[in-house]
């Protein structure tokens, strides 16, 4: 019964939370409409037949989040400095990172991390070879970047999703 009406309880709860935040009220009517929306939209989402996501390690997810926030702040300052530097020639380039991560949700999170961090962008991902191509704005040491991505982000993501 619960599975039939609430196939994605976390998604429904998040939708309800967003609805309450947008309306800025917890009046019974808003709660009811939000709950209905949460259940209905989660059922629509189910029609897409998404592969099952399993988060194995919630504390690590929080830790990764904090690490990413810190990295975003740091690279904001680094990129700002790069832009404001008088001599605007920077050495940038592509880096191919061989990945061990294959879980789709893990890859999606990795894409958000890499793109949200100024200075690196996700360019393309080759699922057959499992190689990720990124572009780095301030490329000094290719091996160091591969190591950073694998150690700082991929290892926790492997533990969380795979």
């Amino acid at each position, binding site marked *: 019964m619960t599975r039939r009406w609430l196939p994605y309880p976390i998604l429904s709860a998040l939708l309800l939370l967003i609805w309450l935040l947008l309306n800025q009220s917890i009046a019974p009517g808003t709660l009811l409409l939000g709950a209905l929306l949460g259940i209905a939209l989660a059922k629509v989402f189910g029609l897409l037949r998404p592969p099952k996501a399993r988060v194995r390690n919630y504390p690590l997810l929080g830790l990764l989040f904090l690490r990413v926030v810190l990295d975003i702040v740091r690279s904001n300052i680094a990129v700002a400095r790069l832009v404001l530097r008088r001599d605007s020639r920077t050495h940038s380039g592509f880096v191919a990172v061989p990945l061990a991560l294959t879980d789709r949700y893990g890859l999606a999170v990795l894409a958000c991390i890499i793109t949200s961090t*100024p200075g690196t962008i996700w360019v393309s991902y080759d699922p057959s070879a499992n190689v990720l191509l990124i572009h780095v704005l301030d490329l000094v040491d290719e091996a160091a970047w591969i190591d950073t991505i694998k150690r700082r982000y991929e290892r926790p993501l492997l533990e969380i999703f795979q």
Partner: protein
Amino acid sequence: MSHLDALPPWAAILVAVFVMLGALFAFVGSLGLLRLKNFYQRVHAPTLGTTLGTFFMLAGSITCFSVLHGRPIFYEILIGVFLTLTTPITLMLLVRAALYRDREEGSADVPQATLRE
């Protein structure tokens, strides 16, 4: 905007600092669009605006309206959440389109496609 007069000085200063910092990061990001040399470099710059730029703007907004209304107002956080979730999609589309064109033109600056992609 006369109700902004009701903002106590400490809050006004805090909000001003937040908004100026946000504007600064957004500006530097836009400046990067102008100053950096090629497409792949330029696409990095606007992320300043979508990360710290947005963060400080939202912090300013949250502080301002929470103080004015005397209760915590933080639905601006949603803007940050949606921006973080959607920027990668636009950026990836742009970068992949550029990469596709450069590869078609046989540019030496971009890595060639692997066999099956």
